């Protein structure tokens, strides 16, 4: 995947467009208007993300989380994408986009409920305009399209952004979502994080297409292929797509080419299917390091700011430890309370049985 040019510049984004009729264009550069404040915010979110990711892995090792899907190496693709959204826009992430969702503002403790096992979705989707982290692959893409169609029907100028992976792109739902979005002109942005793997299955066994972005041509929507480790390029490409959608010009498919530096999840073992050489090459293109380097060169950040961010990152990490380590399970009776708006008689009866069990247990203990 040779779109990798590192972080080209702080004011220029490079990407390839899929021409209307489908051919993959050459790498072209576009101006990106980000103030130094914005650039610092971008860095801050990426640096915090990196720390959140590392802390989550540690908490998993310690058993505080049952499992965790790391975003290490994909910070630029995720943070750069959500940074292109406005306050009223919606985000539809998968289990992979914890840091993108964190960068969108979701409380990190609420965010990790899925992995700590305290509840499937620990945050209020309406509070953050973020859908639950979704595991059935590509299914959430259709939810994003539906929400965008609804917004269009209501003439609300909002955009729905959904992430999915190079593997999920093989699911029927991914195709249905992109085709329906294109034909209905829904204001959606599809961001495919092509991180080279679907668990153990490498991209070349996932599809014969040279780029996932080419799928766009098949449904008549614009496609963009961008270096997923260049946060400026990702922001620039996704921002262009978001603006196009908000203008009423319909959806865009953005393929961010990146790499999953960690195992698929903490339960996975990469030694069975890939070499250290391969990942080493990508480690050399660490999106956070590359970005920081250019920021320093451009005099956008100094040691003081970096130290400030590191300090904040430690506070976030401490909060994760405080609230996730040994977190008490909620009241099991609650499992009956949210199945329907009002519990059915049948569920009330079952709840009563569990209640008896629990009170009996409390008495004997």
């Amino acid at each position, binding site marked *: 995947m040779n779109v990798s040019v590192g972080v080209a510049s702080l004011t220029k984004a490079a990407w390839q467009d899929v021409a209307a009729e489908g051919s993959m264009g050459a790498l072209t550069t576009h101006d990106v208007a980000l103030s130094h404040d914005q650039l610092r915010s971008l860095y801050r979110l990426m640096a915090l993300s990196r720390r959140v990711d590392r802390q989550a892995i540690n908490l998993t090792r310690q058993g505080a989380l049952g499992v965790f899907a790391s975003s290490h190496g994909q910070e630029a693709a995720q943070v750069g994408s959500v940074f292109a959204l406005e306050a009223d826009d919606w985000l539809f992430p998968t289990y992979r986009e914890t840091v993108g969702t964190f960068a969108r503002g979701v409380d990190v403790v609420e965010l990790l409920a899925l992995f700590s096992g305290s509840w499937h*979705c620990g945050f209020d989707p309406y509070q953050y305009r973020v859908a639950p982290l979704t595991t059935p692959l590509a299914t959430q893409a259709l*939810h*994003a*399209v539906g*929400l965008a169609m609804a917004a269009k*029907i209501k003439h609300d100028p909002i955009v729905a952004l959904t992430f999915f992976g190079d593997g999920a792109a093989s699911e029927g*739902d991914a195709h249905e979502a992109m085709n329906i979005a294109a034909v209905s002109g829904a204001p959606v942005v599809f961001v495919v994080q092509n991180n080279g793997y679907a668990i153990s299955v490498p991209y070349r066994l996932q599809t014969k297409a040279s780029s996932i972005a080419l799928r766009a041509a098949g449904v008549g929507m614009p496609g963009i292929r961008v270096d997923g480790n260049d946060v400026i390029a990702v922001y620039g490409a996704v921002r262009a797509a978001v603006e196009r959608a908000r203008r009423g010009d319909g959806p865009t498919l953005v393929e961010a080419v990146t790499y999953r530096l960690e195992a698929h999840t903490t339960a996975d073992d990469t030694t069975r299917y890939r070499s250290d050489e391969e990942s080493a090459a990508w480690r050399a293109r660490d999106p956070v390091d590359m970005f920081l380097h250019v920021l320093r060169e451009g005099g956008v950040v100094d040691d003081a700011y970096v130290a400030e961010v590191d300090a904040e990152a430690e506070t976030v990490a401490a909060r994760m430890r405080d609230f996730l380590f040994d977190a008490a399970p909620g009241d099991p009776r609650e499992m009956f309370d949210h*199945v*329907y708006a009002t519990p059915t008689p*049948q569920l009330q009866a079952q709840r009563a049985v569990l209640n008896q069990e629990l009170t009996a247990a409390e008495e004997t203990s």
Partner: protein
Amino acid sequence: MELTMAGALNAALRDSMREDGSVVVYGEDVGKLGGVFRVTDGLQAEMGIDRCFDTPVAESGIAGTAIGMAMYGLRPVVEMQFDGFSYPALNQVISHVAKYRSRTRGRVGLPLVIRIPYGGGIGAVEHHSESPETYYAHTAGLTVVSPGTPADAYALLRASIAYDDPVIFLEPKRRYWLKEDLDLPVTAPPIGEAVVRRAGTTATLIAYGPMVTTALEAATRAATESGWDLEVVDVRTLSPLDMDTLVASATKTGRAIVVHEAARFVGFGAEIAAELNERAFGYLAAPVLRVTGWDIPYPSAKIERHFLPDADRILDAVARLLEY
């Protein structure tokens, strides 16, 4: 005025859309064509293409987008063109439609309706005569409704559209042309309540959807042919199931038969029979019997009548029931 069930459903959609601007109707061929059964006839013309529109041929897409629409405050009423073509949407329905409220700890409910014409008896080709209710009724988080009369078709569809949780609305397609005199808007007992369609003392026939007509026919014939006074209960809502009404009737008559078109094995009748046997234990003079479709894929048109439960088969079961 006299309305067919299809007409009653059409009126229910129209009235709901007129009253509530957040109701949108979409699916395959529901727009210009008005649906292959004309249930959405005229809606696009009156409500506009934003509120009644055709989609590409993609059932998972139809169900999946309905989730997003409901999240955003609309009340989508989507159509699966036929029972057999609701299966591509099962992943969205089981994984998300049914689970969304509980996975979000009650924060995101999905007020949406998935309409599915179901069942056989219309001489259709394969995959057009399926009875999928077990798949839906077993799935916790779904509400499953199936009307047996034009009046219920109207009242239950309106109630389903106004409901705050997702409803799988199963329309007995062979009864689309069943007529009834109705003064709209008709009202009826709410979702979750079964009704006694015919009071009786000899035994209870429990049916829903297409089999309500069949059960009533059996009861009428039984009265004249055998002097049996059969009670007929229309389930109306498969989930949540109104067991109290069923138990009361079975306890009263002491004998019960569940009737449905779907295959018998792990069919909906098994739930009713298991629960009745447990809750009416000691009051039943005989076990609860099941008169159902055979445990085979739905057969082709020329022999389908030998698959479908009919009055004869029901009366045979009553006779067996009375031998206990």
